[in-house]
């Protein structure tokens, strides 16, 4: 819902909002320039002094105005010829032309009405409404993405376009809200929708009838400072019934031209004051610095527009078009999808295709559109659901839980729920799990037990598909290729072999970096952007499904590196271990932001065993800022599989690695990495209390052993790995 509220105003009003932002940014310069170029009145100068100086220079003066910038303009008639000039208050003489700047006038008319009069003003007001909606919905999306309002400025992850978009948005949003809200107030004021019109006093019916009082003898003028002045109009020459009109920051009044007496006075109304303040906030006239800040923030709008468009295209491309989606009314299988980024739609499309091929009538719909009455022929329901954040509903499943809870009776057709998620996140498939358990609690019959797919694993999906086929009594083969893989060819540069002596042949493979296109760099797709901790999907010969390896390098390192151990009978690892320099493989990059060494100065505690050292070594190599990194590495035997041994020694020397502890599981005194952690309890507690982040990479047994050890070690501090996980300070990459 929020995403829709963000996307459509953004796409529809893109040009309008960009025109508003760019012209507004350009206009923001003028108040500051005017302020800087204007000679200011000396302290204590009164209106009478100033008017006297101007009158001496221009005897035909009719009106004196002072702008919020301090600029003073005088208008006069000289022998019937009108004249005007910007005045130096020190001399009363003109120093510059008072004609309006044509560039500023052009920009102003573009900014407020697109040169289209009232129709253009309404269009621009709609643009301001769109900007407000975009700001509000965008702010909610940022808060949701960052995991709460208090984490507003937490480090950003993800592809470049997404980081640009969010990074600018969270800084600029305040200014954009201020600019667009004040714009709407000003539009309402222009269209007379607000009671903020001027209310000058009624002109007095009686004046003294005499003329010629000296300015200096006029009480109000000789008291009021120039800084309070807005406008002073002189009476018509020779008209004894006329009077001086004085406007100040406080109100408007009339002064007798014979006696200098104040004849009438009206204070500014509350509405006028509010509107003037809003005008100042919007235009920066009278608040030049604020104006410049708002102008700079407005410049973020075009950047957000372009990056938002890129994000939208990327999102559209990743959501496949469904062919032959059966209408809801006649479908026997109702397939409901809860997807955030679009990848779950890909699985739904594969399932729909396979079921349709098997002769089933399948209707695919987003979970948020769930309405049992729409499916009179339904024989079964299948829900494919991802999870957003800490177990919240993904975009296309918003409101599903509420709809389910509100049902008087659940459908009779049984239900199967399949969750999609990433085991390295604490809330793995939490939303799908909640859907399954709430449905069960409501008494919804179960077609199949709740199951999960980890990291878009095609194997998990195929296994579940076989079970579904068995439940339906049909042969069901699900061959899913997760998101059309942008593969590149990687050529091996070098390999370093280890572990043959301990029956664990392992190698560090280094590939040349393939060229990335500009679009790939912009969208962060392909090899455009990756870092240590991301995943390399290798497509082995004779298979379409990629096998994933943690990357031990980032794009900045200039090469692609992974650590591979030969698995008995493993297709992919077998091919990789046999690879010689010069030979190439097909591969793709999958981002894995949960296992990035986030920027910062806080210490890192890296724990890994075997090939798990890959991404950890990548973090250390990339630690040019020399934050304290402590590595605990478990191996079989230091003489055989001490991966990165020389590199680690070098990084210790140049300060990238603060401390290294190792554990050997073979030999006279076998120890696992968790044992070495226990031996360092005091040091670990100290680091965690300094705010250290713990990152664990390796096999499942090793990871649970490490979690147990850390639970014990941290017990005295009251912290647990679970609590650290919730703070984003405990990350695991387990295989």
């Amino acid at each position: 819902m929020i995403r829709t509220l963000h996307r459509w105003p953004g796409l529809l009003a893109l040009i309008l909002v960009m025109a508003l932002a760019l012209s507004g940014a350009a206009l923001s310069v003028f108040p500051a320039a005017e302020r800087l170029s204007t000679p200011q009145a000396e302290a204590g100068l009164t209106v009478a002094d100033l008017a006297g100086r101007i009158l001496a220079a221009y005897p035909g003066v009719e009106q004196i105005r002072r702008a919020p910038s301090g600029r003073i303009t005088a208008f006069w008639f000289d022998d019937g010829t009108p004249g005007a000039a910007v005045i130096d208050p020190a001399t009363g003489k003109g120093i510059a032309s008072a004609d309006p700047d044509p560039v500023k006038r052009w920009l102003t008319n573009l900014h407020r009405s697109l040169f289209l009069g009232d129709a253009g003003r309404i269009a621009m007001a709609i643009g301001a409404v769109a900007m407000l909606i975009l700001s509000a919905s965008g702010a909610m999306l940022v808060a949701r993405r960052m995991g709460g309002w208090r984490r507003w400025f937490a480090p950003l992850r993800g592809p470049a376009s997404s980081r640009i978009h969010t990074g600018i948005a969270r800084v600029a949003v305040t200014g954009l809200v201020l600019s667009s809200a004040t714009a709407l107030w000003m539009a309402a004021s222009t269209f007379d929708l607000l009671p903020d019109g001027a209310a000058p006093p009624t002109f007095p019916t009686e004046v003294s009838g005499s003329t010629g009082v000296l300015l200096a003898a006029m009480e109000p003028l000789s008291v009021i400072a120039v800084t309070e002045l807005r406008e002073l109009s002189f009476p018509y020459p020779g008209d004894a019934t006329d009077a001086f009109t004085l406007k100040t920051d406080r109100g408007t009044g009339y002064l007798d031209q014979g006696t200098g007496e104040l004849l009438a006075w009206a204070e500014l109304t509350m509405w006028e004051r509010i509107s003037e303040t809003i005008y100042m906030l919007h235009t920066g006239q009278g608040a030049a610095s604020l104006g410049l800040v708002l102008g700079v923030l407005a410049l973020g709008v075009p950047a957000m527009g372009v990056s938002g468009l890129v994000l939208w295209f990327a999102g559209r491309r990743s959501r496949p078009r469904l062919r032959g989606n059966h209408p809801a009314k006649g479908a026997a299988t109702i397939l409901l999808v809860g997807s955030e980024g679009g990848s779950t739609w890909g699985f739904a499309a594969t399932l729909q295709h396979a079921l349709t091929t098997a002769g089933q009538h399948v209707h695919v719909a987003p979970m948020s559109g769930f309405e049992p009455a729409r499916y009179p022929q339904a024989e079964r329901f299948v829900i494919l659901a991802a999870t957003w954040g800490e177990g919240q509903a993904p975009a296309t499943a918003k409101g599903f839980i509420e709809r389910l809870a509100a049902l008087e009776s659940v459908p009779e057709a049984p239900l199967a729920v399949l969750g999609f998620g990433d085991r390295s996140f604490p809330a793995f498939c939490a939303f799908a799990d909640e859907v399954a358990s709430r449905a069960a609690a409501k008494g919804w019959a179960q077609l199949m037990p709740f199951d999960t797919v980890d990291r878009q694993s095609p194997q998990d999906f195929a296994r579940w598909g076989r079970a579904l086929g068995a439940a339906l009594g049909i042969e069901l083969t699900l061959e899913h290729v997760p998101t059309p893989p942008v593969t590149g060819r990687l050529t091996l540069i070098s390999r370093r072999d280890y572990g043959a002596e301990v029956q664990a042949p392992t190698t560090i493979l280094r590939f040349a970096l393939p060229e990335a296109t500009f679009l790939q760099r912009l969208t962060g797709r392909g090899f455009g952007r990756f870092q240590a901790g991301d995943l390399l999907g290798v497509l082995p010969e004779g298979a379409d499904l990629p096998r994933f390896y943690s990357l031990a390098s980032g794009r900045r390192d200039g090469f692609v590196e992974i650590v591979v151990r030969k698995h008995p009978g493993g297709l992919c690892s077998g091919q990789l271990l046999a690879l010689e320099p010069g030979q190439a493989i097909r591969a793709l990059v999958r981002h894995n932001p949960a296992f990035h060494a986030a920027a910062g100065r806080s210490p890192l505690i890296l724990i890994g065993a075997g090939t798990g050292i890959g991404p950890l070594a990548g973090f250390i190599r990339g630690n040019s800022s020399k934050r304290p990194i402590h590595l605990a590495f478990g191996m079989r035997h230091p003489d055989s599989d001490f991966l990165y041994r020389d590199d680690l020694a070098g990084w210790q020397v140049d300060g990238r690695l603060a401390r290294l502890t190792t554990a050997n599981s073979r030999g006279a005194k076998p120890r696992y990495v968790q044992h070495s952690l226990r031996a360092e309890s005091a040091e670990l507690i100290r680091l965690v209390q300094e705010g250290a982040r713990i990152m664990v990479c390796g096999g499942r047994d090793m990871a649970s052993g490490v979690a147990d050890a850390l639970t014990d070690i941290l017990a005295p501090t009251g912290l647990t790995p679970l609590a650290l996980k919730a703070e984003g300070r405990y990350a695991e990459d387990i295989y």
Partner: protein
Amino acid sequence: MKSILAALALTSALVAPSLAMARPVTLTTTLNTYGGDGAYLVLYVTDAQGAYAGTLWMAGGKSKYYEHLSDWYRATGGDLAQVDGITGASVGAGRSLEITLDLADALFDAGYTLHVDAAVEDMRDSPNDIAVPLTTAGAGKPAPGRRYVASLRYDM
């Protein structure tokens, strides 16, 4: 005379649909190229004593800016009923405003004066930019204005 004035004030426009003694008059106001946005103009009439008699036309749609037509505003107190139904768009620099009205014969050669107040955003206000006496003899003769109005002419 008094009854006519009362009627004038009532119709607010000095336009006399119910009076047989009226004739169509075309008022042409031409503006200078003063280098600014469109001007707000108000055409109104004062009597022989200089008292406000009624408004003929308001060029400019946003009443919040009427205070800048300061003589007219002072005379009417900004009363919007005075321009009800006789309001049009503002007039661009260098352009002409031409309006045709049925004006009471009693307005001519009786000391009435036609005034134009003008105002432009971010530029000086120009109350009484031009004032011409309404006479049958003066018809067809353009008169120059002071600031924004290049000339004003009435034809009948």
